[in-house]
């Protein structure tokens, strides 16, 4: 019986296959400003939708008067909760607790209250401003103490979701304890015990393309929705019931996405645009501006984390106890899964047998928080890495050697009891970043005086070297790859092979959302490698093919890449079947040898050409759509946290070199080097880009990025790029990257998800470097000048 296989010498046969740095098809267009983003769409006769949002964080809606808005010339519709067409009036990723439009109460600043459609965006905006909403303000809950007080107002009274039964208070979305060994007993063996309380601010995804989309009503009563999102089918499942339409009448197509980072996992304007389109019978476009975007998507959970670690005098960690409180804001979004990640990865990439862990997410009147790159693991990493430095200091050990002494490796059990069953080169990653030569000191000194661009403050000219102290810090992290805790995390790929204009051509069709991660190059690379063709067409992502799952959790190359590979294999078998039928009698190898497709030909594994694909496929197209799944996972036990919850892990380590103006409290990150194991780099250039991007996002969290919410009113104080700062190129240091490729045998090609891990360790490495420079404890991030100057 003949078999088929992936060519073993992957990089040399068909050009543009896996392992090559192929360029993005959209790269030049984006750089030159020609790429069509979802906000650029236009339809003849289209209307513009506008959302009226609450101006207060918690209030009863006494009345809504839309008459004046409706009377405006050019206004086609004004909708409120009363206009929702079906009994389904809420949506949500896991818990359907988010109202499409406020039903008598608003629970956070910026919650959607009413919708307007008009023939001009300015008309729509002005009409929305003429809707009279009378609020009766309610007390706000903004932290654990106020949310769980005996008389605390309940955000969602009468909860009946699947977490409602096991949480200690109705304002706690989900609670996950993990207990393994006996932390109290193990603490008795410790020679040193360190503890700390850490505060992690609210980070925003700050993607550059604001939420936008176009809904076009169709003649069959359905709607075509073109939108920038992270997961078409998840959107579809939430949209269709609210509209009262079967899913096949809501046809979704991905339009140009300007970044996501988790912020497009939840719905934004999707249902609103569809409601307005179906009501008016006209296409409706909605585009948020930057201000609205800060209210239009969930943020990263801010967190308070309490940790205790102990160690013996020879540097072995004895135990860890921690309590992680995540603020989920007004609606659940991804909070339960973030709790699962924060708790199960709270130990970090270390061997600690005795742990006592608790993580909770709160309901509060703060802005809703959900998915963002790193997803729960980021907050924990910030805290446990600070603890590692504290322990090393208490033991008078080198912080890197201390980490290496306790580093996880293949076979280590996580606190959940799950074994890490693929390479875990934690100590090696640390060794690599540490071994790199340090950048030269005092790089600002030139013969003409100080080059301020190389100093904290940059061209703002705040120092010519005065007060500047260098610091170096290290951090390493562990991130799970893929959806965890028993989720059916499959993907679907449709692959077609045919001859067009005398050439064999493959077409890959998935619903994968390309949000910048590079799936479009990877899918073509896989098809070239597996099918031996050079021409690959990537079809637009839409809901005419099965779900690809979310572009989240570092999972798309693994899962949809895996699905593409699987469908390619099925296509290849079919092609070879056809070949055997047509040409099998001409050569015995058709029946006996392992056959491959390479450079447009059917070849034996020995390299002998049996047939041209053009001849094999003559007049016949092969098309297969198939689902593909990675290994199943299990839920965590609600009491003990035990369970094989994760699919795969991704590890990265950073070394940060910073220079701090200690008098003014300004920081310049000089270098942020990273070492990461990626299993197999399918597109090495893209991998480097992901690592540098994640590193920079982590840097932003260390020194500038924070949504500031007024604790008294729960209102957002800085919803703009004037006051929510993200790193510019002048804030971005050199980021040398060291890529390891230790295959994970369970994953396609041995690859590991790449996108999130660098975001974890970047922030704590920068914080460690600032602590090293200043000697300050610094238990919160981002660090502000006030924290460094005691002002």
């Amino acid at each position, binding site marked *: 019986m003949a078999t088929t296989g992936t060519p073993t010498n992957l990089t040399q046969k068909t050009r543009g296959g896996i392992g090559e740095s192929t360029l993005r098809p959209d790269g030049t267009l984006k750089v030159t400003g020609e790429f069509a983003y979802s906000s650029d769409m236009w339809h003849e006769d289209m209307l513009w939708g506008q959302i009226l949002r609450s101006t207060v964080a918690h209030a009863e809606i006494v009345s809504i008067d839309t008459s004046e808005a409706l009377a405006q010339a050019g206004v086609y519709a004004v909708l409120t909760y009363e206009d929702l067409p079906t009994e389904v009036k809420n949506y949500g990723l896991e818990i359907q607790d988010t109202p499409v439009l406020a039903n008598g109460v608003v629970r956070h600043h910026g919650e959607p209250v009413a919708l307007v459609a008009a023939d001009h965006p300015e008309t729509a905006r002005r009409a929305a401003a003429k809707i009279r909403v009378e609020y009766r303000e309610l007390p706000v809950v903004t932290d654990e103490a106020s949310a769980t007080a005996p008389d605390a107002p309940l955000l969602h009274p009468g909860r009946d979701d699947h977490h409602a039964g096991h949480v200690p208070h109705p304002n706690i979305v989900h609670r996950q304890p993990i207990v393994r060994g006996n932390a109290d007993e193990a603490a008795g063996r410790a020679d040193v015990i360190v503890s700390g309380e850490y505060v992690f601010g609210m980070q925003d995804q700050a993607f550059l393309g604001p939420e936008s989309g176009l809904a076009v009503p169709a003649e069959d009563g359905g709607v075509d929705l073109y939108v920038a999102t992270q997961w078409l089918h998840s959107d579809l499942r939430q949209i269709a019931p609210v509209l009262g339409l079967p899913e096949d009448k809501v046809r979704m197509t991905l339009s140009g996405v300007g970044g996501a980072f988790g912020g497009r996992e939840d719905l934004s304007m999707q249902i609103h645009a569809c409601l307005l389109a179906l009501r008016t019978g006209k296409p409706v476009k909605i585009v948020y501006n930057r201000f609205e975007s800060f209210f239009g998507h969930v943020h990263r959970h801010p967190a308070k984390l309490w940790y205790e670690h102990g160690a013996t005098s020879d540097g072995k960690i004895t135990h860890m106890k921690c309590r992680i409180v995540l603020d989920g804001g007004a609606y659940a979004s991804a909070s339960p899964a973030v709790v699962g990640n924060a708790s199960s990865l709270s130990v970090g990439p270390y061997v600690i047998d005795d742990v006592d862990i608790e993580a909770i997410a709160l309901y509060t009147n703060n802005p809703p928080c959900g998915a963002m790159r790193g997803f729960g693991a980021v907050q924990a990493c910030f805290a446990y890495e600070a603890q590692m430095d504290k322990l090393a200091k208490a033991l008078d050990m080198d912080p890197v050697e201390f980490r290496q002494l306790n580093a996880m490796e293949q076979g280590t059990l996580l606190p959940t009891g799950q074994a890490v069953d693929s390479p875990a080169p934690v100590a090696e990653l640390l060794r690599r970043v540490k071994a790199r030569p340090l950048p030269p000191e005092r790089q600002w000194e030139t013969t003409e005086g100080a080059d301020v661009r190389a100093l904290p403050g940059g061209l703002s*000219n705040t120092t010519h070297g005065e007060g500047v102290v260098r610091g170096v810090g290290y951090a390493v992290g562990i991130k799970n790859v893929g959806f965890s805790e028993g989720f059916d995390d499959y993907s679907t790929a449709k692959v077609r092979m045919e001859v067009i204009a005398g050439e064999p051509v493959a077409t890959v069709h998935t619903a994968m959302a390309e949000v910048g991660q590079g799936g479009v190059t990877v899918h073509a690379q896989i098809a070239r490698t597996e099918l031996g063709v050079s021409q690959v067409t990537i079809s637009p992502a839409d809901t005419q093919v099965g779900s690809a799952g979310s572009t989240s959790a570092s999972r798309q190359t693994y899962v949809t890449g895996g699905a593409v590979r699987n469908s390619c294999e099925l296509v290849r078998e079919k092609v070879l079947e056809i070949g055997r039928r047509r040409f099998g009698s001409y050569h015995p190898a058709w029946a006996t040898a392992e056959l491959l497709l390479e450079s447009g030909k059917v070849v034996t594994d020995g390299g002998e050409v049996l047939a041209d694909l053009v001849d094999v496929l003559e007049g016949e197209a092969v098309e297969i759509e198939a689902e593909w799944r990675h290994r199943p996972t299990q839920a965590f036990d609600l009491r003990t946290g035990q369970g094989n919850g994760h699919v795969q892990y991704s590890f990265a380590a950073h070394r940060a070199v910073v220079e701090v103006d200690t008098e003014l409290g300004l920081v310049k990150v000089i270098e942020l080097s990273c070492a990461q194991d990626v299993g197999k780099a399918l597109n090495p250039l893209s991998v480097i880009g992901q690592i540098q991007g994640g590193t920079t996002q982590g840097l932003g969290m260390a020194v500038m990025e924070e949504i500031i919410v007024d604790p008294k009113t729960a209102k957002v104080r800085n919803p703009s790029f004037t006051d929510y700062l993200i790193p510019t190129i002048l804030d971005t240091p050199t980021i040398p990257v060291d890529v390891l490729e230790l295959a994970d045998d369970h994953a396609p090609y041995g690859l590991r998800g790449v996108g999130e891990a660098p975001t974890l360790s970047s922030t704590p490495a920068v914080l460690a470097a600032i602590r090293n420079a200043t000697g300050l404890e610094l238990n919160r991030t981002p660090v502000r000048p006030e924290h460094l100057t005691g002002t």
Partner: protein
Amino acid sequence: MDFLRPASWEEALAAKAEHPTAVPIAGGTDVMVEINFDHRRPEYLLDLNRIGELTEWEVGGENVRLGASVPYTAIMENLRAELPGLALASHTVASPQIRNRGGVGGNLGTASPAGDAHPALLAAGAEVEAESVRGSRMIPIDEFYTGVKRNALAADELIRAVHIKKADGPQQYSKVGTRNAMVIAVCAFGLALHPETRTVRTGIGSAAPTPVRARAAEDFLNAALEEGGFWESGNIITPSVAKQFAQLASGACNPIDDVRGTAKYRRHAVGIMARRTLGWTWEQYRGTARTLEGAA
């Protein structure tokens, strides 16, 4: 909203006289942001971009007459020797694109305490050339800022130019922001040595309701330099004098807590910047090169 596009300065003055609520717009780097955010919706926009003379400058014997719309980029590229403090301040304005559009006239018109040009103008010494159909007048910069985002212009007046004293000694400018580029000032400080008059002038940004001079600090330092014969000797300024100067500069602040920083930090940072800029300018003054140019 009506859009007025005068072809000449005289037409602009006439339009402003006819429509005193008209908001002048040149680079639009302040005005358009306010309009886009719907913070203001003026009845009339008065576009000054057709008036070429506003983007011109003249270097005279004592002053530079800087047209209201001369973009920051032009100041950085052409007037570093004459206006070193303002050139340094220009470097810190937003992004290259905005520096190509925005000019000092806009900063003065908006009169935000966070405007980057103000501390440099206060330190150098300047007069604002304001004009209306009634005539022209020179408003000393010290009298120009009258309140939060308010200035001394009458409703029918437009800013034609700023007359800034040419540097007769070293000048410096420092600005604290929490990012290394493209950032609004948390606070800023400008300092100019005027050896001809043996005086020091200062300007503080973003640390009081208006841009202000640190008058007590200036007075103290002027007296100390005079008494100690520092202008003649070029001796290093004693640390205690620098420290006292910094404390008095801090004391000139009347800041608030906001999302960009705390009042306490602003006071602290202004003191640090005062001490450092004094040190840098004095070093330049003492140095044989006597370069008047800033470090950037």
